């Protein structure tokens, strides 16, 4: 994010910086609060982006999660990421329940798929929009693994901690998710550019 360069932290510094922001925000430091908001927003936005239909929904949902995180910050203990993703997961469940998004998606995608074959996928490259559509074919846990492992770049053990699963289970989920995506993209006529 160009407007918030401090977001681009090195991985080894990230935990230290994040802890500083969290502690500062808990004490009411406005600068730390802003930094934390930007950090949480960018993380959660990526997390929900591929799981809702519209970017606007992703923004609304992310804003809601950030405010929930800030509101509950004083009671936060332990791993911040695991806690943050848990809040996001519950917010997503509420979102699905309220808007019955999954049903909407399955209906709308039938018409989208026809158009995709002839138009969008003819360019033969993976785009965020295509990935989003592919992700809708995955189970909730498979989606979560793809996002945490390959979009957010977390390790197996980190993803396992956030999802409350074993590392072995993450490996299985990751294999199945990638295979399901590959099958979907093959059916859509997409060939990998590599």
């Amino acid at each position, binding site marked *: *994010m160009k*407007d*918030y360069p401090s977001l681009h932290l090195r991985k080894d510094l990230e935990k230290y910086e994040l802890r500083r922001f969290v502690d500062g*925000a808990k004490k*009411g430091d*406005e600068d730390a*609060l*802003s930094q934390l*908001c*930007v950090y949480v*927003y*960018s993380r959660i*936005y*990526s997390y929900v*982006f591929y799981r809702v239909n519209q*970017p606007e929904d*992703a*923004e609304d949902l*992310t*804003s809601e999660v*950030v*405010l929930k995180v*800030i*509101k509950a910050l*004083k009671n936060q203990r332990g791993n911040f990421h695991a806690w943050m993703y848990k809040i996001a997961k519950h917010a997503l469940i509420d979102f699905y329940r309220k808007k019955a998004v999954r049903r909407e998606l399955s209906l709308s995608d039938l018409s989208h798929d026809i158009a995709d074959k002839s138009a969008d996928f003819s360019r033969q490259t*993976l*785009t*965020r929009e295509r*990935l989003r559509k592919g992700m809708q074919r995955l189970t909730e846990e498979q989606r979560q693994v*793809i996002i945490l492992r*390959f*979009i957010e*770049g977390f390790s*197996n053990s980190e993803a396992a901690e956030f999802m409350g699963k074993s590392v072995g289970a993450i*490996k*299985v989920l*990751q*294999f199945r998710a*990638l*295979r399901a*995506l*590959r099958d979907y*993209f*093959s059916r859509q006529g997409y060939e*990998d*550019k*590599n």
Partner: protein
Amino acid sequence: MTIFRDKVMKTKIEEILDELIAEVKRGRSVDDCLREYPEYADELRPLLHLVNSIAELPKPEPSAEVIETVINQARVLLSEQKAPKGFSLREIFALRPVMVRVAAITLLVFVVGLTTVSLSANSLPGHMLYPIKIATERVQLLLTTDTKGKARLHVVYAGKRTDEFMSLLTPGVKINEDLLAKMLHETGLAINCAELLDENSALEIIDQIYECSKQQMKVLQEARHCACDGDTAVIEEAIQDCLNQHKCIECIKNPDASNRHCP
């Protein structure tokens, strides 16, 4: 057997995929990695390319305006949390269930304690609450630091023992010797405290001791009439002690009367 082999193979391919993803992330080419596992190359190649493609996708960027709005909302939220709130026990207890338990137990102990102490105030020797009455008196004495206050308390306790002795006095029934000794002992302790006080303070307290001692003498004389044979000697001895205490009181009241003998 076939199912078992399939399961082992499946576990293996998941492990291999994970290992190769890590290698690709470190910078090795997909083809180079797959050379180590040619039997899985066809299956894993598209998956590894897909991983690369996903990782290369630009991250979804939220608009700066939306983030600014959220930051402002978060600031308001934080300032609301920081603002001093009215004292709300419910909120405190909701946050700390341990506090509720501690407060409830403290309240229970306080109420039970207060009730027991109140009930024990009128108890007589032999009653189950009498030891609590005595213990309460000991605590009161321990908490009183000045000599004058201690003297006053001993007078009060001497009066209580006298009343208790009087209540238990029944014609033909053996007297409570222990209680009788305590009654006179409390008066003696009051006199000892009075002796330590300066002249003015001593005079103030000595009248109360004298009144108490006079009352004790009356009770003892009454006891002499209704006492059984075995108690006569004990009562006579107690009367003699009481008379000696009277003399001590006289000595404190008139310290210059050198002709008087203070026992």
